């Protein structure tokens, strides 16, 4: 154990900002020199590795030559005193304490070849971790101490600014123009439905015709004979229309009680005669 053990224990729960003021631009070594009393800056240490590093720095030797045993003792002493002061330590500080106590026992006890890796190698690895963290802390401090933009060096206060005005040059060719116009013409053409005039016999004319002819026919007469005669070259569809219209005319006249309709069998000729009553 070192002489620092005798120093009065002082607990400082510093806030982060205060830490910055103290720590940032000052190399950690310099700070360690100033600390004659052991200051527990829990927030500043962040974790057990930071505390270990801080303790290691107090040995005032190159981190590579540090005495791991002494370091372990200091750390354990710290945890012990924190416990005595009823200071709540985060669990990871205690986990580290347990691990260090175990490491210390390995280092002090006669060598057990079964234990792999060897305690010396474990100690070396801890040392390497401390070196890495120490290197990064120093690097951070050196970075912060550089000539910084906006603090030590300044850019132009009121730059005119460079502007790139984008100008769009539009292109189009005559074919595209014509194509577009064609598309519009097609799209905007009014939709016209042409209904072709077709020779038909209307229901009205069929009723008139059948009613006129039925007056002369007293006997059953086939519906076909009521159809108008088909002229040569006439549209055959006119005949179909006349048949359909005449049939419907017959039904209509039957409904009116003017004719009677008979059919002997399915698809047999339709027969008409004047209603008897």
């Amino acid at each position: 154990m070192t002489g620092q053990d005798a120093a009065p224990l002082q607990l400082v729960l510093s806030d982060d900002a205060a830490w910055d003021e103290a720590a940032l631009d000052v190399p950690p070594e310099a700070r360690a020199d100033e600390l004659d009393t052991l200051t527990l800056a829990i927030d500043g240490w962040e974790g057990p590795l930071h505390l270990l590093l801080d303790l290691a720095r107090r040995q005032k030797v190159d981190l590579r030559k540090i005495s791991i045993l002494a370091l372990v003792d200091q750390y354990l002493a710290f945890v012990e005193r924190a416990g005595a002061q009823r200071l709540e330590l985060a669990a990871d500080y205690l986990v580290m304490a347990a691990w260090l106590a175990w490491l210390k026992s390995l280092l002090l006890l006669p060598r057990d070849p079964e234990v792999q890796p060897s305690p010396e190698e474990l100690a070396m690895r801890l040392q390497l971790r401390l070196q890495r963290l120490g290197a990064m802390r120093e690097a951070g401090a050196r970075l912060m101490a550089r000539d910084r933009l906006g603090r030590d060096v300044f850019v132009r206060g009121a730059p005119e600014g460079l502007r790139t005005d984008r100008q769009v040059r539009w292109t189009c060719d005559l074919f595209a123009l014509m194509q577009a116009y064609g598309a519009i013409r097609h799209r905007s053409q009014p939709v016209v439905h042409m209904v072709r005039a077709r020779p038909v016999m209307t229901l009205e004319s069929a009723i008139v015709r059948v009613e006129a002819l039925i007056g002369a026919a007293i006997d059953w007469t086939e519906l076909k004979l009521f159809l108008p005669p088909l002229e040569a070259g006439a549209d055959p569809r006119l005949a179909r229309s006349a048949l359909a219209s005449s049939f419907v005319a017959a039904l209509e006249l039957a409904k009116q009680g003017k004719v009677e309709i008979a059919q002997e069998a399915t698809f047999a000729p339709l027969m008409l005669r004047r209603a008897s009553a």
Partner: protein
Amino acid sequence: MNEIERAVEAALFAAEAPMSADELSRHLGGAEVEAALEAVAAHYAGRGIELVKRGDRWHFQTAPDLAHLLRREREDVRRLSRAATEALAIIAYQEPVSRAEIEAIRGVQTAKGTLDVLMEAGWVRVAGRREGPGRPTIYATTPAFLAQFGLESRRDLPGIEELRAAGLLDPVEAVFALEAEEEPDTERDGPNEA
């Protein structure tokens, strides 16, 4: 270059606004800056930037003959969109037309930006207002339009018959006509009779 000149140069460079000799002197702890200002200004004469005095305040600025460097124009070539091409075609064939007329002919709404693009391209101009309800703005083509499309005048625009001959009119109907020839009568009549 002495230390006061260096300080003057740096301070004016970093300043957010032009500074008078007095302000500068105060900023630099009371140094005598007049001679330094003159020396620095002389040093920059003919360079890309210069130190100038406006009123009683000094500041750095770009050399006037290089002012064009501060604003650079970049050209992007872009193809006219379909909507813009259609609008342009309508204006070309039927000018002068209002936006409402363009919309009526296209059968779709035409965004304000579409006409803006055509005017930005320099092919379409506002040709006054149509007398009548709402006095709508009417649009017509420009000489640049004729130049772009290699036309002597608007009369050189292909006519409807030429468009038809080129197969650009009613392409859908043409396909139908072809089918009609091949189909028997009865089938074709079916859907046509109403």
